[in-house]
């Protein structure tokens, strides 16, 4: 094999496959797409000792080529399709040396597909400590492939593995992992002829699983179905027989190869930890404490970097306006593109921090216990134990949380989690709540120690969580499950987190967000900028004339207030302003006027735009404090009735609207990215906005 070679990493979950991937490729990795499949592909590059470049793909972890989840299906899809551009020249199966027999089941399946294979025995140091002795030479001889003992955690054996990859010939050498000709021999023969392959196992796998793989024509699908019918091919029975045959084969292979002298000792620490961490009382208490810590950290640790990002963008915008020639292009670049970019980058601290915690919790094995403890509760609401983290994370920001829902295996559980996560009040709603609460709720103490404003704020969070649970419960009955949901899951032993993995995860998730969701967000923010900046030219000309006339009469000290008035008037007459007037009849039953209408429109991309828009509409200085905006809003009167605009009813209705409505382009973009279709983000946008409208309507009509 000359030139570049393609290598795929395959293995069970929790075998250290990703750590090995990071070790082999360093930061030289990217996220791509598998052709025709909606799952991310992790790709990286590595230089081999012989000078060749290896393209390494990290395939999703799985226990078997018969998949339980969508992610797991990729493994077979990539390995089975000879036309797939990702199909590897060499497969490296990563196996956990501390639990070799179960790990080798997948190895025998992969090896039987006939691609040159290497077995990397990971955690060999750990196995030795636990008293497991593996005779590498004997194992390699019996399997017919190179077996390389490594420890990804302590970075040993990696060069040996690279050397082994270099030594691998293009002819597969492995021994057959099961007597396959005993299983449905006629059907296999017929399928081999149809698919023009001389590989028995590939033919058998295609008989089992051709349907979900999009690598065949409809004629081939029909022909395979016909073969199954003619030869009475019983899929589940054959799968069971195959698994038993493989384990029998592995029993022979491993006898005399593996010696286990310390079987009892190795779980002592994990068991002791589990007794506390999954305890009926302490388990939940510790979990809540950890959640509180995570949530608190996302808020407090991200403040400083987020402020820095904000200042940096404000500075850049100002600097740009000072040094670039005034004009349309400059304004578009600075107020449209740069502002949009700022709206994307601002999320990075929260994404990075949330994923740092998720990665630590997963790496240590604690996440599996959370799933274990919470499964029964979450199942009542159409989700699974694995939905807990995305739901809690949404209190900070729905964007990283929806990304983290990817490890939920059941499609239905995952979709419901994604659909309700944005209902949980995120940090972007906080400035809206604070402003409106300070406007209409008196700063009073209840029974001397409960802050009434704080209580209202907490109430908003409780309402949002109840809404999410309620919608999840409804969706449980509406959404049809695509596959049987299993909860057969390994509880890995507790381990120390691998800090480099944590850093890679933070980097990778932030990068994915910026590049994928960023495109949509910037596009939408440019559109909104155009809407808020431009209006019918005759109206704008009239405004310009009016202010030029006033300006000529006044002295320079008042020019700045004039500028603000002019900006407010321009906004009113911009397309966004006109739209605000257009939607006024629809939002009047909610207690909103056209000015709030403008804020609703500008908040469409990001709800935090509310405060800024209010500032512009009520002609507050750009650097005006919240108190100034509040006073202006308090003084606002309805021109027809002379009554205050922001009554308790209006403010509460508005808060409910911001609590429920989907006003976050980043979330829409990320839901599109995660579900790879516009169906779900559109449904989400419609149901959330509908729910917001109805809730606000009811609240206003009852309270006014």
């Amino acid at each position, binding site marked *: 094999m000359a030139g570049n070679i393609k290598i795929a990493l395959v293995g069970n979950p929790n075998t250290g496959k990703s750590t090995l991937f990071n070790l082999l490729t360093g930061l030289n990795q990217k996220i791509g797409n598998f052709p025709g499949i909606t799952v991310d592909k992790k790709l990286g590059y590595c230089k081999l000792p012989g000078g060749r470049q290896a393209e390494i793909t990290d395939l999703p972890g799985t*226990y*078997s080529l*018969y998949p*339980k989840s969508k992610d797991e299906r990729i493994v077979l899809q990539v390995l089975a399709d000879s036309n797939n551009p990702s199909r590897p020249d060499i497969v490296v199966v990563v196996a956990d040396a*501390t*639990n070799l*027999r*179960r790990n080798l*089941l997948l190895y025998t399946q992969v090896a039987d597909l006939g691609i040159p294979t290497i077995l990397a025995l990971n955690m060999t140091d750990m196995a030795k400590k636990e008293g497991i002795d593996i005779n590498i030479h004997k194992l390699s001889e019996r399997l017919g492939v190179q077996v390389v003992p490594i420890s990804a955690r302590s970075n040993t054996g990696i060069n040996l593995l690279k050397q082994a990859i270099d030594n691998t010939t293009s002819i597969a050498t492995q021994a057959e992992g099961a007597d396959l000709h005993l299983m449905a021999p006629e059907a296999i023969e017929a399928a081999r002829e149809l698919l023009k392959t001389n590989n028995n196992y590939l033919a058998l796998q295609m008989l089992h699983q051709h349907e979900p793989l999009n690598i065949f024509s409809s004629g081939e699908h029909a022909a395979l179905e016909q073969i199954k019918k003619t030869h009475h091919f019983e899929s*589940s*029975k054959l*799968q*069971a027989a195959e*698994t*038993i045959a493989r*384990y029998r084969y592995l029993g022979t292979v491993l006898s005399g190869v593996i010696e*286990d002298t310390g*079987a009892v000792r190795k*779980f002592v620490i*994990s*068991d002791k930890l*589990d*007794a506390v961490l*999954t*305890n*009926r009382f302490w*388990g*939940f208490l510790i979990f809540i404490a950890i959640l509180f810590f995570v949530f608190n950290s996302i808020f407090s640790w991200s403040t400083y970097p987020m402020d820095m990002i904000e200042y940096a963008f404000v500075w850049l915008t100002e600097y740009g306006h000072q040094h670039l020639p005034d004009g349309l292009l400059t304004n578009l670049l600075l107020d449209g593109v740069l502002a949009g970019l700022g709206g994307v980058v601002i999320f990075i601290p929260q994404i990075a921090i949330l994923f740092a915690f998720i990665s630590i919790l997963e790496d240590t094995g604690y996440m*599996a216990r959370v799933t*274990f*403890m919470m*499964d*029964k*509760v979450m199942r009542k609401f159409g989700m699974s134990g694995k939905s807990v983290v995305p739901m809690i994370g949404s209190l900070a920001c729905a964007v990283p949380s929806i990304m983290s829902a990817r490890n939920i295996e059941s499609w239905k559980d995952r979709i419901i989690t994604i659909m309700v996560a944005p209902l949980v009040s995120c940090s972007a709603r906080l400035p809206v709540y604070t402003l409106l609460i300070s406007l209409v709720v008196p700063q009073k103490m209840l029974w001397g120690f409960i802050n009434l404003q704080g209580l209202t704020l907490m109430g908003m969070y409780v309402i949002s969580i109840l809404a999410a649970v309620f919608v999840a419960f409804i969706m449980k009955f509406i959404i049809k499950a695509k596959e*049987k949901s*299993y*909860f*057969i*899951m*390994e*509880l*890995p*032993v507790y381990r120390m987190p691998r800090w480099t993995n944590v850093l890679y995860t933070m980097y990778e998730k932030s990068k994915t967000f910026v590049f994928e969701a960023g495109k949509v967000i910037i596009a939408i923010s440019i559109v909104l900028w155009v809407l808020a900046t431009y209006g019918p030219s005759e109206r704008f000309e009239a405004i310009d004339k009016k202010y030029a006339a006033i300006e000529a009469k006044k002295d320079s000290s008042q020019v700045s207030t004039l500028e603000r008035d002019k900006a407010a008037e321009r906004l009113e007459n911009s397309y966004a302003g006109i739209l605000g007037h257009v939607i006024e009849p629809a939002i009047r039953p909610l207690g909103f006027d056209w000015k709030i209408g403008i804020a609703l429109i500008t908040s469409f991309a990001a709800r935090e735009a509310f405060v800024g828009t209010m500032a512009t509409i009520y002609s507050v200085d750009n650097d005006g404090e919240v108190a100034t905006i509040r006073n202006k809003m308090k003084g606002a009167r309805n021109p027809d009735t002379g009554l205050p605009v922001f009554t308790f009813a209006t403010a509460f209705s508005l808060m409910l609207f911001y609590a429920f409505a989907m006003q976050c382009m980043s979330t829409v973009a990320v839901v599109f990215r995660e579900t790879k279709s516009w169906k779900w983000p559109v449904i989400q946008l419609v149901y959330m906005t509908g729910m917001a409208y109805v809730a606000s309507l009811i609240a206003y009509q009852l309270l006014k």
Partner: protein
Amino acid sequence: MQANSHHYIQMKLSQLSPGQRATIVSFTDLDMSVKLMEMGCLPGEEVEVERFAPMGCPIAIRVAGYQLCLRKSEASIIIIEQ
């Protein structure tokens, strides 16, 4: 529950309490058995129930040298003998 000719008691895995051990005999659901066997729950394999989740389900078992958790409904298709 029934006693067979070897005087072993056959029952479902879901009926065991934490700390009890047994040997897997067979399965009552073919599709589920495929997944369980892949995870190492083979007939003849010894299992020990380690603990229940705080709300009684799922349960954690020790099998094939590692810890596996599964819902009670899934454990109830595993026939064991003590």
